[in-house]
């Protein structure tokens, strides 16, 4: 990021990036957990086994807290299109507004109508409708993800638009816009990554309860589901979705791929640097350790393929923070690989019936849950830093998109405000989730709205 402190675009980018990265800590778990809850509700309906209901209820409580923070931190995202990015809204509102509006109309109404019923309304709705509420909420959260990814895909790879007589963008084909191939690949990659977060969190809870020696039935349920889904999702994140994503970047944003890989010079038989630091000033990669030919193969399918280097493109089309982009991308790949190994090992030991007793692995599973969050955010940093210096790739530059009338001081002020408020929100969230974990899955009072009327009613059964 061009860190010129008197540049308004810098502060608006920092604010958008910070509020978005923070916000996305929550929806990724919402999207990841939603289908686990649906699955347990379904098993409970089919088998009548109360342990599935207990699991669904417990995770619905975590889901509810997570959802609440996701909602309140999400509203600022939409408003910032107008407050901080007025130039962008004016230019592209007719196109990106379609999906922003659809997200509200199709996804949020669905989610928000049923989420309260999912968390508190088990008795009011009855088992069938309660199951449907779980389906509605999970569907809503994934729909919302799709509309946002279509919006982002348009910024990465604009399709279905026309340039109007007044110079702004209008929509030319809604179907081309909604079915942007970039959106499908990015959506698959992103949703699988959200499932990885969900599975790691569930597996961590299972490992925690197992190590503690409490709630054994629930702990086994969480470990089984978390490790199995975690392995499958982690594999899908890498292949085919991640692989396709990288190939697509190579096709449509070759300069971005070069920057992600720290390729300052183009050439055939390009290798992948496993280790190395880009030195942008001198235009080279310091102390690289390369896997020969790997990049040629990964990006274009042949070991000898020519891979473009940054030197082939004018410098004003280079991503403006190559170092950060390079580290984000490489760390994401490293973490993704470790996820596959960890979950592979856990699933294997579980299959042998030895996971419950392999204490070191349980420790690792318990402590590993923050890393998918990190990998998800790194993935988004790769996507968004890689898109620079464009707000809409090859159409509209980031420096043209910010609000002219908002001063730097205003943005810095609100950025500090968001930082403080979000810090408090984070503490509150951790405290309340920690409390739910301590009370455990067999805690009877789902919501102590009840507690108010009956002090002392809280009990652990």
């Amino acid at each position: 990021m061009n860190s010129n402190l008197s540049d308004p675009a810098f502060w608006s980018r920092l604010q958008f990036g910070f509020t978005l990265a923070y916000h996305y800590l929550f929806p990724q778990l919402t999207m990841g957990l939603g289908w686990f809850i649906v699955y347990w509700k379904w098993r409970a309906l089919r088998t009548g086994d109360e342990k599935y209901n207990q699991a669904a209820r417990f995770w619905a409580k975590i889901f509810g807290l997570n959802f609440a923070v996701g909602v309140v931190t999400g509203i600022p995202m939409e408003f910032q299109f107008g407050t901080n990015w007025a130039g962008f809204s004016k230019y592209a509102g007719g196109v990106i507004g379609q999906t922003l509006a659809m997200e509200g109309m199709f996804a949020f109404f669905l989610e928000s109508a049923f989420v309260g019923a999912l968390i508190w309304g088990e008795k009011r709705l009855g088992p069938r409708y309660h199951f449907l509420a779980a389906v509605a909420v999970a569907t809503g959260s994934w729909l919302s993800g799709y509309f946002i990814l279509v919006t982002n895909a348009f910024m990465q790879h604009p399709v279905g638009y026309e340039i109007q007589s007044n110079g702004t963008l209008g929509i030319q084909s809604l179907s081309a816009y909604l079915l942007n191939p970039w959106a499908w690949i990015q959506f698959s990659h992103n949703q699988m990554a959200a499932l990885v977060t969900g599975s790691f969190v569930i597996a961590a809870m299972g490992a925690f309860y197992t190590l503690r020696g409490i709630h054994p039935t629930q702990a086994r349920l969480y470990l089984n589901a978390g490790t199995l889904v975690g392995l499958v999702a982690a594999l899908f994140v890498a292949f085919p979705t991640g692989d396709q994503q990288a190939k697509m970047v190579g096709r449509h944003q070759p300069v971005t791929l070069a920057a992600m890989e720290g390729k300052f010079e183009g050439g055939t038989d390009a290798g992948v640097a496993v280790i190395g630091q880009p030195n942008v000033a001198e235009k080279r990669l310091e102390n690289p350790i390369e896997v020969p030919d790997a990049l040629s193969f990964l990006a274009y399918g042949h070991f000898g393929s020519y891979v473009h280097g940054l030197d082939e493109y004018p410098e004003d089309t280079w991503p403006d923070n190559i170092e950060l982009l390079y580290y984000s991308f490489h760390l994401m790949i490293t973490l993704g690989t470790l996820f596959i190994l960890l979950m592979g090992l856990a699933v294997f030991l579980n299959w042998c019936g030895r996971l419950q007793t392999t204490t070191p692995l349980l420790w690792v599973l318990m402590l590993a849950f923050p890393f998918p969050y990190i990998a998800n955010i790194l993935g988004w940093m790769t996507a968004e830093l890689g898109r620079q210096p464009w707000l809409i790739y090859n159409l509209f530059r980031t420096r043209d998109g910010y609000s002219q009338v908002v001063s730097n001081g205003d943005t810095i002020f609100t950025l500090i405000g968001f930082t403080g408020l979000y810090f408090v929100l984070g503490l509150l969230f951790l405290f309340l989730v920690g409390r739910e974990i301590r009370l455990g899955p067999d805690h009877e009072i789902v919501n102590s709205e009840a507690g108010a009327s009956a002090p002392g009613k809280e009990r652990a059964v």
Partner: protein
Amino acid sequence: MIATWFGIVSFMLIAYVVLDGRNFGAGMLSWHVAKTSQERRQVIAAIGPLWSWHEVWLVGFGGTLVCVFPRLMASGFSGYYLALMLVLWGLILRGIALEVGGHINDRLWQGFWDFVFLFSNFLLAILFGAAAGNLERGVPLDAQGNFSMAFFTDFTPYGHVGLLDWYTVSVTAFIAVLLAAHGATYLVLKTEGPVHDRSARAANYLWAAVVPLFLAITAETWIVRPALFQSAAHKPLCWLGLLVIIGAAITLISGLARRHERRAFTGSNVLIAGVLGTGAVALYPVMLYSTLAPENSLTADAVASSQHSLLLASIWWPVAAVLAAIYFIFISRRYSGKASVRTDNQGFYD
């Protein structure tokens, strides 16, 4: 087409005010009508599981505004930068207070969140009231259609205005009292016991206070923007709006007088929708009026997306709106009736 979308966007904003307005109102009154922590839980139970569905109308409005009137969204939101950020922070506090206040059965914990809830609802009602006043009065738009303004300048509603002046402060007071009255009417319908009785008394005197405030801001609007009334007089829809307001007022008064709770609340909803709707029709086609020079004003035609964008949006929007209404009806039926303080171990209220 553009007029239709002006109507839809206004409808969404009005739906938001009518729906979330009851929550603001109930929130502002939550210390007045509910004296104990337990009674305040009852107020929150009355707001019920649909508060975030109500809030989605604001999100949907924002998204639709980018889609169909992108230039208005760009000018308006960046011009009101700090005020809008306060709205966002208020919404964050309000949502969190609602969601976590009941989580721990502890006097201090609940007392703290009850206060945050009260404070954020006042803040939001005041900010939305000021926003309404600003829409009627106008903002200092320059020739490029941009503006940026202070919270207040010299407190006159002409020229280089601020967010607050004598006119917008009056509108703020009107809106705050109106929403409080609306919230009280809602609590009468949804609660029983002492909260119900106090809300019924509050509803009576708050509605009584609405009448002089309404007459006052009508007179003030006549002074600040006389042209609004001239244009309204030529619009049949404004006369229809006036009939709706009168009809709603009669329904409301008869509902209050005969203690017919549902009728009173229906009247209250229609009345607010009528007042805001008539205001919106009177404003059309101007969406943002310039206090510096009328020719700088942003009209619906000038800020709209292309015909094609509007056409495409009018295909999917009705589908989504019908679906949203179905979810709402399904859930509200499940949660109909009074919110008591009796709860089981799973119900929001019994």
